[in-house]
């Protein structure tokens, strides 16, 4: 698995765009929307190498925070400009409201690409990059409000261990969110999907990234991955409550959610 991602790290984003025809952006947007984080949330994004979820999280929190500040100021009518200025200073222009993201990935290359992207796009505060294994996270218990793993859990060898680690590092009341390719139940669609996956994607892999075998692996790992209900049962086994899933695009992708209660 490590070598697969070492090869694909640099071209990861480009490949994602071409493989999913850009829809993966929409999926990730929906994912963060479902999370609906409020300022002050501490997020752990596992297998989040190139930072897609992390950046979206920061954008979301920033806009929520802006609205919060606007509402607060509206309450205080008739303030002098001096007072308004001071109130901004007091909150330290806290545009993130103490929210934080820790991006954890097993692969150094992916993290490097992620850091570069962050610099390039101008994300500086509230981000940390940590090297780590999802089956054995280098964090203490009860640390995070939300744990996300987007398109990463199928690459984990022992999914149950990863789920247990997720349970461990989450605070009580914390949320586990998982975005992953899943099973399409609609028979017509599933045939089209299979056709596309096995014929088109490895070819794209060869053309764009010069690597047929990694993308063949990727497609096969999607087929191997447990379907929605099975994953839901595994999440419940790890101790999460209120476990539920939402299919996007008829099951091509599914979002699973559970709470540590």
């Amino acid at each position, binding site marked *: 698995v490590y070598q697969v991602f070492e090869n694909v790290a640099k071209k990861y984003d480009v490949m994602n765009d071409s493989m999913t025809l850009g829809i993966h952006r929409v999926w990730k947007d929906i994912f963060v929307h479902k999370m*609906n984080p409020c300022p002050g*949330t501490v997020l752990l994004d596992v297998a989040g190498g190139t930072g897609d979820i992390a950046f979206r999280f920061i954008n979301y929190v920033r806009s929520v925070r802006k609205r919060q500040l606007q509402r607060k100021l509206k309450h205080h009518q008739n303030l002098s400009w001096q007072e308004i200025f001071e109130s901004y200073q007091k909150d330290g222009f806290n545009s993130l409201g103490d929210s934080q993201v820790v991006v954890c990935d097993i692969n150094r290359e992916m993290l490097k690409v992620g850091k570069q992207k962050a610099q390039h796009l101008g994300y500086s505060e509230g981000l940390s990059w940590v090297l780590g294994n999802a089956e054995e996270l280098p964090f203490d218990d009860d640390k995070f409000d*939300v744990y996300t793993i987007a398109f990463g859990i199928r690459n984990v060898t022992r999914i149950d261990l990863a789920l*247990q680690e997720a349970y461990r590092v989450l605070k*009580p*009341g914390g*949320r586990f969110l998982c975005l992953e390719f899943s099973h399409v139940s609609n028979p017509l669609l599933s045939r089209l999907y299979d056709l596309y996956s096995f014929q088109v994607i490895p070819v794209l892999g060869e053309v764009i990234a010069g690597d047929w075998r990694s993308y063949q692996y990727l497609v096969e790992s999607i087929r191997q991955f447990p379907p929605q209900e099975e994953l839901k049962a595994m999440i419940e*086994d790890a*101790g999460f409550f209120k476990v539920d899933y939402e299919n996007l695009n008829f099951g091509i992708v599914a979002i699973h959610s559970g*709470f540590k209660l």
Partner: protein
Amino acid sequence: QHYPPLRALQASAALRRASDEHKKEPLTSSSQQHFDSPPAGHQPEQKPQGPRPSYTGQGGQESEDYESEEQLQHRILTAALEFVPEHGWTAEAIAEGAKTLGLSVAAAGMFHSDGSELILHFVSECNSRLSELLEKEQKLVQLGEAEKKPIDEFLRDAVEARLRMLIPYIEKWPQALSVLLLPRNIPSSLNLLTSMIDDIWHYAGDQSTDFNWYTRRAVLTGIYNTTELVMMQDSSPGFEDTWRFLENRVADAMTMSNTASQVQSTGEAVVQGLMGAAVTVSN
């Protein structure tokens, strides 16, 4: 034969330890002993039975564990109510509520992001409080310690008491009303409204079994809704305009019902007179 060990809700256990000021439902002692068992270590199960407690096997204990999830949600929503004046009926208020209980703010994700559950919870709580109030009053009347009120006064007092419960949240209540009207919420909100009106009439002593039952409820629902709307834009001290409006509406309703019965009896009298005239003429 063994059953999978119960996992007591970790949060509930942690909350018990953390603060004693909050009133919490005590978990049974056997749930307590499972609190420390690591979530990972459960014995292999013969059949693929999830950790979701089933209603077979350990019976009452498991159903208590299952209910704790709803009880926890209940507690979070109750805690969230005090943040509503500041944040409105939103997921933010729920997140703040969860924080006071020692849970992560992400727990607000359990509820819908528009705060519907919070509002429905509040309405149902108000209705329960109203029922308790009316029950207490009824007991006093039965014990002979209080006079039985005439119908219009009774209705007026009941509606006023119920509307007064909105006063702390009055600024954000219009927002709540609009959320309650969302198609998704209409079944629940309608249900709550009709059961409240039903309650009031029940304690008012209504025992009708004919069409009157429907008219009475429709009339009272109309009175309640219109008074609520008046209250939304009432700026008089102590909402006296609203209470006066309420008084007038209830009086109208009473007059209407009197008029209706008068019309009916007049009609009967007229018919009888005609019959008598016809008999006289025919003879």
